[in-house]
């Protein structure tokens, strides 16, 4: 761990003062439960054992998003909380998060953006920067890839070792893999369905080379030909299978976390999934003959190696809610839980974020992985996911305060397109109009709140990215639903 001399001194002084006092107890709310919570609990225990000034009380709870909002509004938030990347912009716009800039600068001696760039691959660095501040640090990240079922490929006469490398190949293979009952014509298998599981449907426009917002954070859903191409492509699958056939066929899919899930049964031969998927395969479809590859190239460019491929990045974040009683101690813990011992050569030496990501079978978000972590990671394809995170085409959901609404509007538009209820262009136009209105109201509200709070300089409502956008891709990122996050609630 990097420690400035000043910090060490203050720590020593602090130790002297509180030598006989009880440790400061801080509360940490986390949305994870089950093995993911246990992985973080190990980190908390490690932190608590590493010093005696701060004791972290780890509480794993469901419905954390709403509870956090209510508790923060009530002025009684936890000191540390785990949130989703999808919530960060909205929470930050609503002044619910404590900026970490001063802490970072004090501890590292670096400018915040320099520190981010030095510590993380670009996509993760960008995810943590919002409107010139850092409000959250990544605890556990993930990237996505194409999973294909080799057994089904073989049955359909395709080379099981050759996943599609371009969109055209994906479509062609999908056609070949689609199987209908010879008597009734009922669809029994498909190669690929944009909506199965469809968690990353919001990334298709960016995958096609378009984007959801521009550098000025304007909504750009309608009016970009790439976005329309993506919508037309979704529609083409509804036409290929047939709308009514699709309704019935898709309703036969088992739930995600079961052996009857469409990919496990071979009903759908190719899916886009995240780094967590291998663990589900091991649990629900042990022995499944499958492969993992980068997303096919959808922009018409020549496909390159995975390190240049498109991927969707997402992350769980640690934040200090505004009004937390022990922000200083909370930061100590966050710093511990998001950094690692870079020289760990045995399991016992693995610490912080690496310990967490080992337990959760995810890649470490850091640029530097310790020797032990890289060599002994339990995930069979961890290297691919690491490479994808470093790709210049690694993409994350837009950092925009109305993102949850954006996702909802987008998904509704695509559903209506798939049901052939409305033409793709009209559906996108409609969503664009609603979102643009809402975004305008959101900006006005944020400006109004800033003025009321007496801020001399209101928040900059321009580009969300701290650094200029990477290539023609929009900054952005996240999955609304993921099986290892909590599902719906009453």
């Amino acid at each position, binding site marked *: 761990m990097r420690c400035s001399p000043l910090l060490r001194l203050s720590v020593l002084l602090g130790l002297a003062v509180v030598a006989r006092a009880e440790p400061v107890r801080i509360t940490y709310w986390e949305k994870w439960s089950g093995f993911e919570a246990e992985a973080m609990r190990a980190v908390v225990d490690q932190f608590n054992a590493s010093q005696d000034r701060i004791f972290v009380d780890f509480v794993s709870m469901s419905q954390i998003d709403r509870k956090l909002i209510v508790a*923060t509004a009530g002025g009684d938030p936890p000191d540390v909380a785990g949130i989703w990347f999808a919530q960060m912009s909205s929470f930050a716009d*609503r002044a619910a998060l404590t900026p970490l800039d001063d802490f970072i600068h004090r501890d590292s001696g670096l400018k915040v953006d320099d520190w981010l760039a030095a510590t993380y691959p670009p996509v993760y660095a960008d995810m943590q920067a919002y409107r010139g501040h850092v409000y959250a640090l990544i605890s556990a990240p993930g990237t996505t890839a194409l999973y294909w079922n080799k057994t089904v490929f073989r049955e359909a006469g395709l080379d099981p070792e050759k996943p599609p490398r371009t969109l055209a190949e994906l479509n062609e293979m999908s056609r070949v893999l689609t199987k209908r009952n010879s008597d009734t014509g009922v669809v029994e298998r498909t190669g690929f369905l944009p909506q199965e599981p469809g968690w990353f449907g919001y990334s298709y426009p960016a995958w096609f080379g378009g984007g959801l917002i521009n550098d000025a954070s304007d909504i750009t859903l309608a009016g970009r030909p790439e976005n329309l191409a993506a919508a037309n492509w979704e529609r083409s699958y509804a036409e290929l299978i047939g709308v009514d056939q699709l*309704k019935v066929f898709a*309703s*036969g899919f088992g739930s995600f976390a079961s052996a009857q899930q469409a990919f496990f049964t071979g009903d759908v031969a190719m899916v886009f999934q995240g780094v967590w998927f291998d663990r589900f395969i091991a649990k629900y479809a042990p022995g499944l003959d499958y492969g993992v590859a980068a997303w096919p190239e959808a922009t018409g460019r020549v496909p390159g190696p995975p390190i240049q491929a498109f991927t969707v990045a997402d992350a769980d974040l640690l934040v200090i809610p505004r009004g937390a009683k022990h922000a200083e101690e909370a930061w100590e813990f966050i710093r511990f839980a998001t950094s690692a011992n870079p020289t760990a050569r045995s399991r016992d030496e693995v610490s912080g974020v690496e310990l967490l990501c080992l337990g959760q079978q995810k890649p470490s978000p850091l640029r530097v992985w310790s020797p032990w972590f890289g060599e002994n990671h339990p995930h069979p394809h961890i290297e691919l996911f690491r490479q994808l995170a470093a790709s210049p085409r690694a993409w994350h959901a837009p950092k925009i305060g109305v993102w949850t609404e954006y996702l909802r509007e987008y998904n509704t538009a695509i559903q209506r397109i798939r049901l052939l209820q409305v033409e793709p262009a009209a559906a996108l136009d409609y969503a664009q109009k*609603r979102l643009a209105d809402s975004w305008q109201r959101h900006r006005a509200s944020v400006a109004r709140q800033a003025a009321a709070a007496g801020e001399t300089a209101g928040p900059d409502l321009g580009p969300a990215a701290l650094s200029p956008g990477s290539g023609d891709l929009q900054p952005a990122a996240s999955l609304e639903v993921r099986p290892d996050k909590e599902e719906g609630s009453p």
Partner: protein
Amino acid sequence: MNSADWKRLGSGLSFTGLWIIGFSVFTLYPVVASLYYSFCDYSVLQRPLWTGLENYRTLVADDVFWLSLRNTLYFAGAAVPLGTVVSLSLALLLNQDVKGRALFRTLFFLPSIVPLVASAMLWLWIFNGSGGLLNWVLGPVFALWGGTPPAWLGDPAWAKPALVLMSAWGAGHSMIIYLAGLQNVPRELYESAELDGAGSWAKFWHITLPVISPVIYFNVVMGIIGAMQVFTTAFVMTGGTDGNPARSTLFYALYLFSNAFYDLRMGYASAMAWILFMLIATLTWIATRVAARSVHYQD
């Protein structure tokens, strides 16, 4: 007011005193606060800022608001009558002189106390388009005409009817209230009606129905209030607050909830809540007007 009036007032207030406190602290204050919020730009996380009628103006122009209202009225308009018929029929059946009544009563009541998550999962399976129980039964029937049964929750046209059907499952709760009302019907009334040669239908129509009319009124009002706020089953079964497919099950409370807690527009959500409040109040008022003519209290 004379001294007797004052005395009666004092007596009335002493009995209702607990409620005056409870009402003020746990209802009136929050309601007034939310009314205030409905005129504010309020994210929950920051101070409410007065914006006058802006939330209401935005609502009127919001297509999805109107859609969610239509969906909700559709649901309430179908679920309340269906629930009333089912629960009253069950209560009438149980009110017969039958063996094992306690057991049947318990069985009918059970679904209304099974945790909603559990029953929602069951119904997801029953409604499943390809492997579900309902279409397993309906498939051969539809095949007679060469058709196939609908995909229910997967089909925008059939998702709401599916949820209405499912709501009848929880009829046990109001059935219990009807049953209590039915047992309150004086037996002498039936006996004297039988002496006059009245048949079953006449007895039901002229004795049972008038006597239990306060209970029907009660249940219908509670049914309307519940149906207008329908939330949990849709939330669990049709994709959180999205109202899948294609917003066909986006009910009022879901849209309100997503505004309040996902989009952090508590002021907007409060305005929606107040419109819902007014709407429910109007519907209840209509029910009360109807009741004033047809409900009989045994005073």
